[in-house]
């Protein structure tokens, strides 16, 4: 019997049964896998009850010159004359809160040290501290977006009469 002949032979009963059985088992396994996948998906929340990344701080004039720590938002507001910038207090190594001491930021967890501009002096921190985008809200408060980083050296000078 040649190959062409073989093609024309209708599938035997056993072959048909084998395919049907495979389909049956396959659908059961597929359904089970889908259920597992659905259960796993539930662990990735769709709604997060977390504070927004964009938030208001105090009015510019309320900040004294120098470094002011904002505990609620884990950042430093830095005022030089009329210019402001905001540096994150979250260490870039493993996320501990750095402290401002004698002209440098120190991390208590693994000993990273940063210059006043956030760049690394020593320690395990792989990146400089983040600088956050800062502006003035319409009602006259400093407004920070911690999801938006700006280049170090960024300065925000509020319009006259605000600071």
């Amino acid at each position, binding site marked *: 019997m040649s190959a062409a002949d073989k093609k024309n032979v209708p599938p035997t009963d056993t072959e048909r049964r084998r395919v049907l059985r495979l389909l049956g088992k396959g659908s059961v396994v597929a359904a089970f896998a889908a259920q597992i996948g659905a259960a796993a998906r539930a662990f990735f929340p769709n709604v997060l*009850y977390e504070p927004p990344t964009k938030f208001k701080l105090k009015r510019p004039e309320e900040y004294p010159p120098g470094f002011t720590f904002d505990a609620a938002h884990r950042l430093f507001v830095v005022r030089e004359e009329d210019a402001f910038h905001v540096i994150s207090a979250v260490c870039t*190594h493993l996320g501990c809160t750095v402290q401002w001491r004698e002209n440098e930021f120190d991390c*208590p967890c*693994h000993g990273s040290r940063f210059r006043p501009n956030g760049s690394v002096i020593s320690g395990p921190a792989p990146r400089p501290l983040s600088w956050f985008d800062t502006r003035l809200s319409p009602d006259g408060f400093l407004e920070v977006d911690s999801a938006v980083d700006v280049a170090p050296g960024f300065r925000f000078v509020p319009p006259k009469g605000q600071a």
Partner: protein
Amino acid sequence: MGEQLAKLWRKISWSWSPGSERESSEAIVRNLWLHWFPAKITRAAMSWNYSLWLGTAAASLFFILTVTGVMLMFFYVPSTERAYGSIKDLQYAVSFGRVLRNQHRWAAEGMVAVVFLHMARVFFTGAYRGTRAANWLVGVGLLLATLLLSFTGYLLPWDQLAFWAVTVGTNIAREAPVVGGTMRFLLLGGTQIDQQTLLRFYVLHVFFLPAVLWVMFAYHMWRVRKDGGLGAVEAIKADRRMAPKPMPATKSYSLFGLTPGTSVQVMSSTELEAEDQVVSSPNLTRRIVLVFLIVFNATLLASIFFNAPLEEAANPAVTPNPAKAPWYFVWLQELVASTTVHIGPLTISGGFLGGILLPGVLLVLLAVWPWLDRSPLSAEGRWFPSSRKTQNRVFVVAMIAIVLLIVVGVFLRGPNWRIYWPGMPRPQAPTVL
């Protein structure tokens, strides 16, 4: 009715001083609590000096932890607002709550230590070769589960240690290539450490991880029996092979007796002899009760005299200075703090190198060690055999390195994670700004 009860009692109890060997083995075989033990056990495995009974001690600690843990669940509230308060209640308002929590804590720290020592014993006696390699692998899994249980456990009080440990721990997870960010999101149940995070770690700690550990423990015990008992058995068998008993004077007319060469009696002398073994009931059962009581009383004594640590309530704004992990993780903290490397413009964070890569390599090395080990099988079941000098040296060096890192972390690190030698004044770092 009374007779029925007596019958039931006979099924779940046994005689502690059996009158015959038959009564002894029946106690093992027909009893629900004892059926997973062998009817007879080798004298070598019963020896205090061989196993130091560290595995039994670890299992005892795990049993204590399960019972005290379930009791603590009646008092603990897994909520970021109430968790810390419920621990304070246990310490100051619940009768004997302090002892209960202390015992859970000290048993947990004890279990980390004992499981590690048990692994060291198995390593030094070479009891992970051949058929026992699979059980070594299960043991590595048990060690890992023990460490994960400790980690998820000390997060629950929601004090400063807890909060900063989750912060650091989940940020290490983030450093994993490709899946890091997803893993952290999954662990935290979001992007910030919050109620979802506490709940997830709680369920992991009180159900998921203990269930995994119980299943692995059961398999570990089953494998011990399938592998023919402790490694010490191999040493006896090897000794028997070296000095076979003289052939019995009787002549064998069996089929085997006609074959030339070694007769069946010589072959069978490699097997265990009656004098090598004792009945498990009551020898093994008594010993297990004794080890359990020693361990239980040790943890209870520690719990009466020493309080489990509890720091101030979690405060995201202020990281304690220095912020130290519990002693069994301090060596990892040392690693992540000192392994950030700069290669040209490229920076590899210590979080990845010291937090994931190095421990990962160590774990894989530990897991596959039985298959790398080329020492002779005859070394199995003895302490420090000369043919295993190299392996033991490698293991001791690794152990000393870890212990040194722990000593440096626990005793020498001060504020800002700097080294302070004994006697050097340590600046008081403010904990509140």
